[in-house]
């Protein structure tokens, strides 16, 4: 013997064993025709030299991945003297599936039962003799990472390779299937084929096209006879795989003893409460409420002023430098009111955004969001929507563009259209600064409640509109799906912070790019024509705003400033605050946007304005995504108009009803 093939599941310790055997005597290349890495090494044992080939980690020897094909082809055509199957002792049932396939191939196999130390730690008891007898394969316990058992393994491998016997598997796949295998085998036995015919017959019955191609030129029998599909009463592939698992289950049952797991673990206990039929939704609402409250307590009270002071200080410093440099007045005006009044107004809310994303990141990392999707799934179904729509809605809380893209998981076109059309009601991160500035101005004591109410209103509105669509535009039954509940886990601080930083950085980047362009363009319009009072009603911007403002008069905020900010928000939602900051920076003493808003809005009109921004036309990126995803300009136009109408009606209702009630 001189060639040993190492085969095993990924993470079974196969490569550790390879390294332990060969040390630095390795050669790394690629398998021909594929990008899979080929590792070969040599070692000497008792005066003889051996070559070890480390095959790609794989769970089976089918033809579903390059790794599987490479491993299978090498075992079949590479003529290794022996195959060492590295089996993870802590996960023996799963690993033995590959073993059964090696046995079916009729090659010489020795099992290296690896990670025995970890199995011991997990109190898994394995009767090696019983397992070896049941499988008919030599088994050696190894701990490759500590070089334990390797000499014994090599000794057994050499001894077995010198014996005139091969590993085989001797169990029935059931009478019907055994008969079919035998029929195919007979055909193959009568042909000039060098591969093990029983194994080929099994693979052909499984429907393995790769194997059929391998023998196609050598057997002149129609494919239907080599790969029968049956009469529909037997599912060959399922039966074959299932029998292998049954075989493994029986053997493991006799030879392996594992500690009993707790009947009900912590995840089960928590899930009983958080996915409860009646308590699930209130718990979800409570958790989100607490998140919003904490956002205000930590983000605003502890960090808010700090960033405001920094932005103001930088603004004053830059203007001071420009003054010293005798810069023209218009440049100073652009920098102080356009950039620091506008974009600076957006920057001041970064602490709140940081804190909110941090808490949402924690919820995601713990696995709770899957529970939230599940409890909302029930509500979605009750109003005739597909439960999966809520998953895309959760994604929409970050940004509506990926939210809409994630509706691709909905197979039914009607379900998908509804999910796309209601997604922009999910309040994306870009709308957050708008709420935050108005909350700071009018509802500083109840920030958490107001923010929570806005997010909740978005969900409620999505449900109502979705229900209307499902009864009118897109009638049909919602399809069924099953959701996985992953186990809870402790959030990993590093990942939460990294995710949070990604989102915050994107916010800063957009403020410095898209918002900068929008603000620059609108600043030009706000100081032209020459000679007018900057940011006044006489400017081009003021005139456009004044022309459009009557639209919003019934909603209580029919000022030209509010109007231009809303229309600028269609370009990008962050622009709303930036424009408000810019146009009010010039008219308000102290250039403080919050103070300026307090002088022109009331709590009622502020609420109407926030609801308008929550519900009205999404940004152009979302509209473009709708066009792309629906492949229809018609739906893109619909997406631009219908939320505007809904937002306007909601804002008018709030203002008019509120006024009647004396707010």
């Amino acid at each position, binding site marked *: 013997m001189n060639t040993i093939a190492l085969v095993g599941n990924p993470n079974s310790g196969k490569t550790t064993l390879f390294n332990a055997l060969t040390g630095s005597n390795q050669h790394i290349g690629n398998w021909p025709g594929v990008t899979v890495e080929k590792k070969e090494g040599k070692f000497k044992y008792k005066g003889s030299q051996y070559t070890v080939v480390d095959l790609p980690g794989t769970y089976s020897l089918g033809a579903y991945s390059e790794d599987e094909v490479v491993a299978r082809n090498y075992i079949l055509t590479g003529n290794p003297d022996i195959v060492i199957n590295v089996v993870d002792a802590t996960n023996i049932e799963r690993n033995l599936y590959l073993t059964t396939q090696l046995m079916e191939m009729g090659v010489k196999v020795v099992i290296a039962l690896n990670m025995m130390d970890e199995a011991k730690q997990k109190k898994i008891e394995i009767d090696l003799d019983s397992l070896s007898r049941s499988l008919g394969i030599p088994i050696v316990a190894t701990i490759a990472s500590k070089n334990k058992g390797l000499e014994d393994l090599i000794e057994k491998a050499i001894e077995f390779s010198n014996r005139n016997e091969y590993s085989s598997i001797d169990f029935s796949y059931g009478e019907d299937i055994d008969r079919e295998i035998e029929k195919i085998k007979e055909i193959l036995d009568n042909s000039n084929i060098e591969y093990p015919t029983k194994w080929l017959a099994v693979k052909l019955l499984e429907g393995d096209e790769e194997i059929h191609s391998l023998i196609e030129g050598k057997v002149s029998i129609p494919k239907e006879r080599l790969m029968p599909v049956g009469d529909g009463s037997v599912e060959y592939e399922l039966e074959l795989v299932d029998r292998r698992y*049954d075989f493994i289950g029986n053997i493991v049952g006799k030879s392996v003893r594992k500690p009993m797991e707790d009947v009900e673990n912590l995840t089960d206990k928590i899930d009983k409460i958080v996915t409860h039929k009646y308590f699930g939704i209130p718990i979800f609402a409570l958790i989100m409420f607490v998140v919003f409250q904490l956002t205000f307590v930590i983000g605003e009270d502890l960090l808010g002023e700090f960033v405001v002071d920094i932005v103001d200080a930088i603004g004053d410093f830059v203007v001071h430098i420009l003054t010293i440099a005798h810069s023209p007045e218009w440049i100073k005006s652009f920098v102080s009111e356009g950039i620091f009044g506008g974009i600076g107004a957006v920057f001041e809310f970064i602490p709140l955004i940081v804190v909110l994303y941090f808490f949402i990141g924690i919820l995601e990392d713990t696995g709770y969001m899957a529970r939230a999707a599940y409890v909302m799934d029930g509500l979605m179904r009750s109003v005739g929507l597909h439960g999966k729509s809520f998953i895309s809605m959760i994604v929409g809380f970050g940004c509506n563009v990926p939210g809409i893209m*994630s509706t691709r998981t909905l197979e039914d076109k009607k379900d998908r259209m509804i999910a796309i059309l209601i997604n922009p009601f999910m309040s994306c991160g870009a709308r957050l600064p708008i709420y935050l500035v108005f909350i700071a101005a009018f509802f500083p004591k109840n920030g958490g409640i107001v923010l929570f109410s806005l997010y909740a209103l978005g969900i409620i509105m999505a449900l109502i509109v979705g229900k209307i669509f499902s009864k009118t535009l897109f009638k049909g039954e919602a399809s069924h799906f099953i959701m996985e509940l992953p*186990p809870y886990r402790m959030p990993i601080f590093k990942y939460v912070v990294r995710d949070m930083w990604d*989102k915050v950085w994107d916010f800063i980047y957009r403020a410095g790019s898209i918002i900068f362009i929008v603000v620059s363009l609108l600043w030009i319009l706000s100081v032209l024509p020459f000679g007018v009072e900057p940011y006044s009603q006489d400017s081009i911007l003021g005139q456009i705003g004044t022309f459009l403002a009557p639209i919003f008069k019934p909603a209580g905020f029919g000022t030209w400033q509010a109007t231009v900010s809303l229309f600028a928000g269609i370009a990008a939602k962050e622009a709303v605050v930036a424009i408000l900051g810019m146009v009010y920076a010039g008219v308000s003493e102290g250039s403080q946007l919050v103070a300026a808003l307090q002088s022109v809005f009331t709590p009622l009109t502020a609420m109407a304005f926030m609801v308008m921004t929550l519900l009205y036309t999404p940004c152009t990126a979302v509209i473009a995504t709708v066009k792309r995803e629906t492949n229809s300009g018609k739906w893109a136009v619909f997406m631009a108009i219908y939320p505007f109408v809904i937002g306007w009606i909601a804002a008018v209702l709030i203002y008019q009803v509120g006024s009647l009630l004396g707010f």
Partner: protein
Amino acid sequence: MLRKVLYEISKSRLYSPSNIAKELNISEALVEDAIGQLIRMGYVSQDETSPTCDTKCSSCAYSSVCNTVTIKTLSITSKGKTLLEREASMV
């Protein structure tokens, strides 16, 4: 085992590999393996909320705001439903 796992999945709108593992007295890894086999054979289809689009995250302008929460969902295909019905009729 594959049939049993398919049946366990079909029982409810929720599934968790650890619960199925406990129910069938097998390891969680084996349940995941079985679900993988069922998907591969077309009895079950799986999707995740992410990645759901053709664009690679590295070249997507929205990757940083794209929610990373991964919620796996399964649907039993018509092939899977036929198998379950056949199994039920045999009981």
